[in-house]
């Protein structure tokens, strides 16, 4: 007997479909709807049209959380790309103990954010932390790290006697500490991805460059960098999406996004509004704004990729 092709494919998909429609698609649509409601914890909400969005645009803490998130992304993403490409290039050069280094670099990626946030919170402790101990070795005075609300660029330039204008102060040192941890955690993953990309570049290009007399650094800039660009775009897009979602670090390492809201990232703000203050409609509006931002950035990055792809 011939198998019944007509219904059976749908039956195979059905279990996954039910779960994904009920617990993915439905909540995503609901999130959009709820953003037009005044929705406190239980019971039904009250339709208020665009009011949540109007409140959001006038909410200074929302803008600050966006600004903080912007700093995080704008520093973390390039730092991750540069460092993981550097790691990968170095790893690609060596013959021995390569897999040992790969394991070491990958370790932070598989460990839980909760545990590493707790460890790094203590590393950044002003009195007993490792960060200040190491700064002490190179003759830099102890920093307040997670308790410091002043901008990182301001602090750096101030220490050499230059006063920066306010808009150039940068993210707070507390947020910078979170950025350091987040880069540290994601480096290994991206290094492995870059390493695979490097191994995919045919040796022919390097041999040709060698014959033309190109130095090693010329080869890096004119062969490696262009040919690795598809990987770079992958890392760029994934790291951007992930860093917009940073939450656990803020929850575990700071006192509710302090000092002075300088570490309040937008996902933490969604959590705080939704589950601490129980303004779920408003929190959904912020979530939707974040979603549109991520979507727009991803589409933009894809567009750019099409233009520069080799």
């Amino acid at each position, binding site marked *: 007997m011939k198998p019944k*092709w007509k219904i*059976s*494919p*749908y039956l*195979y*998909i059905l*279990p*996954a*479909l039910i*779960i*994904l429609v*009920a*617990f*993915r698609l439905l*909540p*995503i649509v*609901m*999130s959009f709807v*709820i953003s037009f409601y005044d929705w406190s914890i239980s019971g039904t909400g009250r339709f208020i049209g665009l009011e949540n969005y109007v409140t959001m645009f006038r909410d200074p803490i929302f803008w600050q959380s966006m600004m903080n998130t912007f700093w995080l992304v704008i520093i973390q993403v390039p730092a991750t790309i540069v460092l993981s490409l550097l790691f990968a290039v*170095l790893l690609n*050069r*060596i013959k021995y103990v390569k897999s040992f280094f*790969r*394991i070491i*670099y990958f*370790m*932070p990626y*598989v460990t*839980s*954010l*909760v*545990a*590493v946030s*707790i*460890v790094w*919170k*203590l590393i950044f402790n002003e009195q*007993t932390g490792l960060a200040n101990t190491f700064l002490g070795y190179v003759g830099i005075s102890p920093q307040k790290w997670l308790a410091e609300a002043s901008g990182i660029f301001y602090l750096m330039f101030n220490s050499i006697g230059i006063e920066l204008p306010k808009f150039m102060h940068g993210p707070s040192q507390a947020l910078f500490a979170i950025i350091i941890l987040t880069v540290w955690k994601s480096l*290994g*993953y991206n290094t*492995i*991805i870059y*390493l*695979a*990309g490097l191994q*995919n570049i045919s040796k022919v290009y390097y041999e040709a460059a060698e014959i033309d007399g190109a130095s090693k650094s010329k080869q890096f800039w004119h062969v490696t960098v262009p040919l690795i660009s598809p990987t770079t775009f992958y*890392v760029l897009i994934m790291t951007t*999406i992930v860093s*917009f*979602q940073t939450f*656990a670090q803020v*929850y575990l390492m700071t006192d509710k996004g302090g000092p002075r809201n300088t570490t309040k990232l937008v996902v933490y703000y*969604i*959590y705080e509004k*939704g*589950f601490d203050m129980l303004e779920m409609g408003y929190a*959904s509006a912020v*979530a*939707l704004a974040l979603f549109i931002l*991520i979507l727009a950035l991803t589409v933009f990055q894809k567009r750019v990729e099409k233009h520069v792809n080799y």
Partner: protein
Amino acid sequence: MDKLRSIITYALLIIFGLTMVVPFIWMLSTSLMTQSEFNKQDTLFIPKEEFHVWNHGDDSQRILVVMDKGETSIVHTLDKDLNIIDEYKEVPTSEIELLRKKPSLHWDNYVKAFTKVPFGLYFANTLYVSFASLIGVLITSMLAAYAFGRMEFKGRDFLFYLFLSMMMVPQPIYMISSYILLDKLNWLDTYNALIVPWLANIFTIFLFRQHFKSLPKELFDAASIDGCSTFGMLWRIIMPLSKPIIATASIFSLITSWNSFMWPLVMVNRPELRVLQVGLSYFNQEASTQTTLLMAASTFSILPVLLLFFFAQKQIIASTAKAGMKD
């Protein structure tokens, strides 16, 4: 020149490698110190205990220095169990000696941390939730990927792209509405909230589909001639040929559920239902001054995943490398 280059390369790799592991080493060494050792700060990585003894005659007695007055010092003398025998005794300072015990590892921190809050229960909850969702994910993904990868039907591409686009929506976006949904289902504060929404995983469906598509058509034709049913092919042909990919997907699924934090934090309030990560985050608030216990708890909470990683690092690293390769 080449030799110099390779020395520099290795040197840099070692420096970077140290940056990667020093936080772990520090966590481990702190977890084995006493709190006073940690607070004193003169022992950075190697836990070792310091104490004073009073040498008088042939006798050497353990003491606690209260005040150093120059010529003489005020001390408490202690017995073997460190109970005070004589209070505020005045002894010549020259007879006091500072001793350092050889590295003493306080494994009892682990016992203390483990029993201070019910970490055993948190481990059990996490294992239950992780494995229950793993089984669900494997079943739903196998079935769906079989249809997507090896069957022709109307709306297949539409459904597949719908799945893929849902995967692109970050979790925090639908966290609030999921909470409301689970509240309406009366599932908040139950295992259902932690398991059921995660019984299907789009990434795993995608992974399986790629693999199923790559299997040779002849196998299926031959089985069909032998009278094998559609489901039979999944069971008898695909399953045996998919063991490595099932293993890889399982490892990733387990690591993800073991480490998931925001979802269980929000959806469950009852202490009996806490998973490990949430339990650890509450412990972080409650025991914030007990650094050594906190580090011990962090260590044992990452240990299972680290063991799984060391055990399966080849597969994990190989499939991560593949993720960046677009076909």
